[in-house]
């Protein structure tokens, strides 16, 4: 009996120790996705311009170009697979340790067809950051298992796999992974190539517009500038969104009512060139650089006014 109690104690202790070693390694990462998450959820930042959104925000807005054209200090907190509400929750989690930015560039995915897809993509990535209370609350709201992930080490380890182990080791040894060097201040080009088209109606629920209202209100309270952006979608794909033009119209009205700028690039010539896209909704590196340049110049013109 005594032996068994000792073994149970050792196993539990080892579970916590191993988990802390892995989390420690991930938090040590100076490159790639974990460096980005460390910045968003753990570090204390003072970026002047912040880019918010999903993977489209992450891949379409190159901070290197934005910084040089606009002479600002920007960071991209676009999160892969994130819904509009989750993007905003990530922004709130960012604010737990960081100062409110002066400019917020909010890339809106109006093309999403399912209103209820507010789930967490690649959720084990967030495990090392559950000490960020805002993030934990946002994750637990979407997935009750996060309570278990936070407090039971073997439960969270079971969902992580060896990719996280090797990323942690890379963190300790300061070695970048295969795609880690793609990241620059949170922005990274997309590499997946999946071309699929289908006719559909995009999500058109009041709650989506209400979120824009609340962000606009928060920005106003902090005296920050909010810029809503509809970054390019390949023209053939945007043509498949049956209610696309009415959605854009509603977003424009929403921008006017909140007295914020909306920059719509969905009828831009960039949208017609398939060589600038990795898939119908994500521009490739070349396309993203062209778009960022164009967007930065447009923004510069607005700032001058």
């Amino acid at each position: 009996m005594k032996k068994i109690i000792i073994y149970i104690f050792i196993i539990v202790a080892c579970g916590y120790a191993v988990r802390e070693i892995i989390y420690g390694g991930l938090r040590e990462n100076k490159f790639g996705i974990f460096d980005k998450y460390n910045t968003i959820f753990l570090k204390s930042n003072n970026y002047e311009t912040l880019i918010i959104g999903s993977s489209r925000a992450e891949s379409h807005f190159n901070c290197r170009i934005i910084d040089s054209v606009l002479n600002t200090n920007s960071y991209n907190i676009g999160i892969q697979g994130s819904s509009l509400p989750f993007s905003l929750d990530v922004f709130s989690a960012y604010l737990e340790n960081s100062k409110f930015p002066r400019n917020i560039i909010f890339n809106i995915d109006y093309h999403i067809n399912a209103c209820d897809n507010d789930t967490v993509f690649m959720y084990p990535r967030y495990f090392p950051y559950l000490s960020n209370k805002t993030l934990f609350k946002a994750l637990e709201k979407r997935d009750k298992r996060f309570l278990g992930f936070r407090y039971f080490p073997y439960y969270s380890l079971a969902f992580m796999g060896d990719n996280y182990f090797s990323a942690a080791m890379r963190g300790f040894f300061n070695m970048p992974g295969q795609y880690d060097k793609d990241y620059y201040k949170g922005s990274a080009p997309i590499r997946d190539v999946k071309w699929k088209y289908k006719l559909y109606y995009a999500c058109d629920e009041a709650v989506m517009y209400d979120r824009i209202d609340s962000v606009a209100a928060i920005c106003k309270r902090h005296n920050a500038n909010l810029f809503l952006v509809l970054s390019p979608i390949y023209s053939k794909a945007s043509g498949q969104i049956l209610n696309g033009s009415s959605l854009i119209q509603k977003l424009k009205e929403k921008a006017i009512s909140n007295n914020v700028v909306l920059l719509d690039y969905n009828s831009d010539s960039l949208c017609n060139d398939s060589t600038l896209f990795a898939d119908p909704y994500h521009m490739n590196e070349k396309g993203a650089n062209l778009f960022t340049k164009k967007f930065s110049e447009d923004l510069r013109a607005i700032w001058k006014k």
Partner: protein
Amino acid sequence: MLFNSLPFLVFLPIVFLFYWLLNDKYRWILLLAASYYFYSGWGLWYVLLLASTTIIDYFIALQIEKAGSKQRKKLFLIISLSCNLLVLLGFKYFTFLFNSGAFLMQHFDNNEVHYLAQIVIPVGLSFYTFQSIAYTIDVYRGEVIPEKNIARFALFVSFFPQLVAGPVERFNNLMPQLKKKTNFEFEMLLPAIRIAVWGFFKKMVIADRLAEIVDPIFKNIHLYSGSTLLFAGFLFAVQVYCDFSGYTDIATGVAKLFGIQLSLNWRRPLLSSSLIEFWKRNHISITSWFRNYLYIPLGGNKVSYGRWLFNIFLVFLISGLWHGASWTFVLWGAMHGVLYCIELVFNKKFPNLKWRFGLGHVYLLLFHTVSIIAFRAASSVDLFVIYHKIISSFNIELLGKEVFSLSDTFSILFSLGMILFLFMKELQEETSFIRIPTVRYSNYFRPAFYICLFIGIFLFGNFNSNQFIYFRF
């Protein structure tokens, strides 16, 4: 319910706790209920099938015992065998036989024929059917006194740790243990947990990770060179071994928690130096089943030399078919049958000849690798494409490039490292080549080793894995 699933993780401690809390008289009832609940996880219809096999064999065994003449006994035995084999035939072999017939018809008539889609085979059908058949044959032979209590007999057929993938237990081994009064002792826990942890490690860390390399290669055989296909065959051999022996280890560990010792099913078969030795170590419970209930009734070795060899070949052919209703499995059985007979002839002609410098091990591993590809190939056509590629486009330079293109380097190297780890562990068990002081081993090294394995399961195990390979059989 899978062993490597969350529901089982809840189910097992509950059953374990109540089992030892209950009065000795009622424990077997709890085990019976738990076994049926465990099996119902795959579908209620399957439970009905299991129950009907149990009922038929229970009553027939009683009739066999009561029957006055040998002829009547034989008649009841034939009824039992027919019922059991009909169920197997209906679920497992009907589609195979129908489609094979249709294929032949198409070639003779040139008419378009329709093939049937494979019927879903109830999980563990072959295992519990074989266990039940063995019981009725043993009763017929007078080796077993039939069980009078139908519920106790139902527990023998359905005992959950070994129900779906064996070991196929003999009545004389399992039933006395199910009836025996046992007291709980903490000392029995640790060996049970150790063996189960090693089983989980083999399944989730070795087998399931190897599957991630093997599956894409066998799904796209046209994209890979012969050398890669052969290497995938080797990985698959290790995968199957770890998958199945892992299941047996978990089953043995779980059964030990209830004070029951299951039969030995695997004795490091990949370390064999000949096919004859391999079959003494590989899937022992089913091999002994075929020996006792097929090979010996065919005449065993008490027939002419030629007939003896033919009987052996036939047993392998049927064993192949038992593993799967497909011509690829028949071919696998035939390959093993032929080589087994060749080894027997060779051993008779040159009784003193022995393999040297580990050549026997290399020969066995190579043959096992080549033959097990038949186990994995999606169809006979695919199998011949693979064999043709191994012969015609064997390019060792492409091997590394093709294998490392499947996943990230760490993952591939880790999986290959795990094969080396498995080999070292089995070699240690076989030869004790590392001498460790007994006291220090049992006090420190062994607990540390199993704690590392436990953590390793969570760190490197595949928790999104598929079912155990042998469930299909």
